[in-house]
């Protein structure tokens, strides 16, 4: 499964939606994922890819990880996988 498909699967499960309803353009807010849901999704992503995501729930905009859309999350994870494998 590609990184994109896996991330969409995790986010869809959190949002209680079918993966086909989650597109790269969706925002977490559009999908009805609240702040606790974001933290839980990050945890699931870390577990799935065995990476550490620099996400600060205290001030998400200060994080070195862009969660503004599904697309930005996928790009961030691909970057982290490459960095953390290196």
């Amino acid at each position, binding site marked *: 499964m590609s990184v994109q498909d896996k991330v969409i699967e995790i986010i869809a499960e959190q949002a*209680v939606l079918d993966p086909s309803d989650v597109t790269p353009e969706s925002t977490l807010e559009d999908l009805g994922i609240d702040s*606790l*849901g974001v*933290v*839980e999704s*990050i*945890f699931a992503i*870390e*577990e799935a890819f065995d990476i*550490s995501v620099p996400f600060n729930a205290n001030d998400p905009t200060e994080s070195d990880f862009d969660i503004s859309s599904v697309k930005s999350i996928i790009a961030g994870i691909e970057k982290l996988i490459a960095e953390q494998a290196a």
Partner: protein
Amino acid sequence: MKRVVITGAGTINALGHNVADTLEAMREGRCGIGELQMRDVERLAVRIGAQVQGFEAEGLFNRQQMALYDRFTQFTLVAAREAIAQSGLEFSGELAARSGVVMGNSGGGMQTLDENYRTVYEEGKNRVHPFVVPKLMNNAAASHVSMEFNLKGPSFTVASACASSNHAMAQAFQMVHGGFAPVMITGGAESMLCFGGVKAWEGLRVMSKDACRPFSANRNGMVQGEGAGIFVFEEYEHARARGADILAEVAGFAMSSDAADIVMPSKQGAARAIAGALKDARINAGDVGYINAHGTGTAANDKTECAAVADVFGRHADSLMISSTKSMHGHLIGGTGAVELLACIMALKDGIIAPTIGYEEPDPECALDVVPNEAREAKVDVALSNAFAFGGLNAVLALRKAP
């Protein structure tokens, strides 16, 4: 001061998943204690407990709730739903703004702690689920009750080990009695039957390996249970005005501290709490028909408790009934007084006294009418519920038949 009545009751424990099943089991003297079923049970020296069986939380809570609720919170919500449904109350406007939740609990989310300690210590993982803290904090259950039922008044959790839920219900009583809140949801819950929880208790060597036999000469310790008991405490005029069914009146309470020893009970401390509850409720000692004992089944508690009762009641101690229902549902620690209050309500409302089961040999140091092994019919106007905690913290509630 306002009069306080109970207009709803709910429970889940080893005897049943609701009040009706629990009271039926108490009437029949059924025992909820069995072999513990849990991971690593073979590493435990104590392998019995009163576990809640057949509980399918998945059908009762949605996915997000499941991720956030430790077992003690699940128990609390199941019992709160039953109690509030029975009361017929719905919380909105002024009633919601002033009504609150006071819960008793001792260990918090022990299942959550146990599982996550395994993750980080045993499995060596360095990441835990983000909800560990909101699941394990011991006010989680009270908070989730406030959220589910829109209760916006004073809410908190009381921790005084084995007396937690009696202390909690005393606080709730005081809130309503003093006019601070028209309705309080109160009681307690505990879920310590996990490997780490039982292992910790094992260390103290007060747990029985075979049965809970309160007041019996051959008693050899306590047996732990789990579950919740939740009640709706309501101001009497408020309940009467809406034509609510009243289960019993909470007439008064008292608390005392032994200020003596962290585990050994004190006769004087217990006696002061019992006598204090009678005084607070303006009840004559001779009117008390039933006492739900703390009755843990340890050598120390049972003889100390009987001596305290004898001191307070004098000759009347021989004519009242005192039983320990822990012999059936086990010791629910921070939730125990709440489940035991059901036996007091049954005595007052239905005229049935729950027995002390497992009673085999009379103990001259516990020479009271402990209602051995079989329930009894009796007319009771006033009942007391005792709770004496480790740390010497005592809380006794006095209940009267519904007005």
